[in-house]
């Protein structure tokens, strides 16, 4: 057999172009469904584990999926906003701990998550560098954000404008990075966390004042008389909360009507959970969802799609296998002289078959190895792949 393998190896090596095409075809046809399976399993694992660990979400009536995807995975499709009253309502029931979430803005492609510090305890997120945000305008960033944007504590990030064509829109906020979170292998690694009030500052609800009378930049001032100083649009290109102006920062109106996208409710026990859900059954403004149920529904749909894809891959697989068989038959025809010669020399038909089998074995083995290596790569990177491209 070793001699057969040697001869077969020489053959596949000599015909490396054909061999490569065969190996690639076989590898792909095996790799695609298996890789899809791994990615889907990882997606399911990530979606489910986060969903299971998030007892209840309360948000505006509408798409439950949008609410869950935005609140758990910081999807940029923000659900309709509710207001802070919703948080108070949950707290007043004494049935659950309420954590507000406002996921609407972005900075350099990463979501800005406005929340309270309780979120970090809830998700068991630890600070790895720097410290937790303390003042308005400070931010703590996920490990992947820090890595990809090469930002460290002491650096800054500027929020992206909500709408490029919003002439009356607010200035972006320059946020000071106070800390970087330890990697949690979750969507939190890809998020920029700020205090809820900082998110409201980004939206323009809270603001400070620049002292124009003391301004050194004369071009900022449009008009000045004894009573009034009028500034032009050059006044600020972005807002920044600093030690100098933090005292002047204030919020207008009642905080309870300020927007959030969801309330993450942590019921004290199963009974509290059931009671809390019951209270929102007939509510016309809010919906309460169990992320686990929503994700389960989503996964069912995904698996249905996966089955269709697998069926397609199966058919393509059959076509590929037939093609490979054809390639071998044609190859045999081309090699008829060679087969005849070795037969005349004294080789049995069985040995001829063994030579062919060895060639197939080498090709299958190489495909299996390549496929395993690719699958291993997909497996070890599946977490990141899923977080970056799917969630």
């Amino acid at each position, binding site marked *: 057999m070793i*001699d*057969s393998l*040697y*001869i077969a190896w*020489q*053959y596949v*090596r*000599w*015909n490396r172009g054909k061999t490569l095409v065969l190996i690639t075809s076989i590898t792909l046809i095996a790799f695609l469904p298996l890789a899809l399976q791994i990615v889907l399993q990882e997606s399911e694992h990530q979606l489910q584990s986060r969903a299971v660990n998030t007892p209840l979400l309360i948000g505006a009536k509408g798409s439950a999926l949008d609410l869950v995807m935005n609140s758990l995975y910081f999807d940029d499709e923000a659900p309709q906003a509710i207001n802070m009253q919703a948080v108070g309502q949950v707290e007043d029931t004494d049935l659950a701990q309420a954590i507000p979430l406002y996921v609407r803005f972005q900075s350099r492609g990463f979501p800005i998550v406005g929340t309270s510090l309780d979120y970090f305890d809830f998700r068991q997120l630890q600070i790895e560098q720097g410290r937790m945000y303390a003042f308005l305008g400070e931010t703590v960033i996920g490990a992947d954000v820090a890595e990809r944007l090469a930002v460290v504590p002491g650096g800054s990030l500027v929020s992206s404008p909500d709408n490029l064509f919003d002439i009356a829109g607010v200035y972006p906020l320059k946020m000071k990075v106070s800390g970087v979170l330890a990697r949690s292998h979750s969507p939190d690694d890809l998020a920029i966390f700020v205090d809820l009030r900082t998110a409201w500052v980004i939206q323009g609800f809270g603001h400070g004042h620049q002292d124009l009378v003391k301004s050194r930049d004369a071009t900022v001032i449009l008009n000045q008389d004894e009573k009034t100083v009028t500034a032009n649009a050059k006044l600020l290109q972005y807002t920044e909360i600093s030690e100098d102006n933090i005292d002047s920062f204030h919020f207008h109106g009642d905080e309870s009507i300020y927007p959030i996208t969801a309330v993450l409710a942590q019921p004290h026990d199963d009974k509290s959970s059931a009671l809390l859900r019951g209270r929102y059954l007939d509510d016309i403004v809010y919906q309460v969802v169990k992320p686990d149920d929503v994700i389960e529904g989503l996964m069912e749909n995904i698996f249905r799609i996966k089955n269709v894809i697998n069926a397609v891959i199966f058919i393509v697989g059959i076509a590929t296998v037939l093609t490979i068989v054809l390639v071998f038959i044609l190859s045999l025809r081309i090699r008829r*002289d*060679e087969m005849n*010669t*070795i*037969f*005349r*020399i*004294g*080789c*049995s038909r069985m*040995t001829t078959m063994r*030579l062919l089998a060895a060639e197939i074995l080498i090709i299958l083995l190489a495909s299996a190895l390549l496929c395993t290596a690719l699958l291993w790569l997909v497996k070890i990177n599946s977490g990141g792949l899923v977080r970056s491209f799917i969630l």
Partner: protein
Amino acid sequence: MITIESLKFSYANSSFRLNVPDFTVVKGEKLAVIGPSGSGKTTMLNLIAGIIVPENGNINVAGTAVSQLPDAGRRDFRISNIGFVFQNFQLLDYLSVMDNILHPYRISKALDLNKTVHKRAIELAQQMGIADKLLCHPDQLSQGEQQRAAICRALLPQPKLILADEATGNLDPENKMLILDMLFNRVDEDDSTVLAVTHDYELLSRFDRVVDFHEFYGVGA
């Protein structure tokens, strides 16, 4: 070396008939077989080699009744006792010259590939003047060099009988002589017998005996 008695052979669905009442080749003889195409020269070689078996009659090669052997026995006998040299060399392009020479040892259990065989292969190649081409592939060799490699392959198992089927047909006149000399020298050393089918009449003088197959044995349609 070869004794054939009352041999009859025909192909299915063909009017071709071969009748050989009596045919003998003595040990160490260099016999040239001539005759027109279709006269049964190659069929005769195949019968002697045990690739095909006759309907009637006996073929005895080196004391073995080849036609009486089973398939596997004929194969083992062939690879151990008969060296084939073909017109178009029939080297395998994906193997190096060395691997081509050693090929019979790799495809049959009847031959044992060991260090001595390797050594002998190198010696043969040196004798045939292709020692520096052993690592090359056939497509890197000239026609003459390719045939020399094919002869090495045929001679390596030290066969008692060499069957050459138009072995010089694809070579230029200079190479024909050279290669025939090389083959005969080695055959003399090994005390082997040569049965060569050829159309090259100018080479016939180098053989001990010439048999016109058509005139004596071939019965065409």
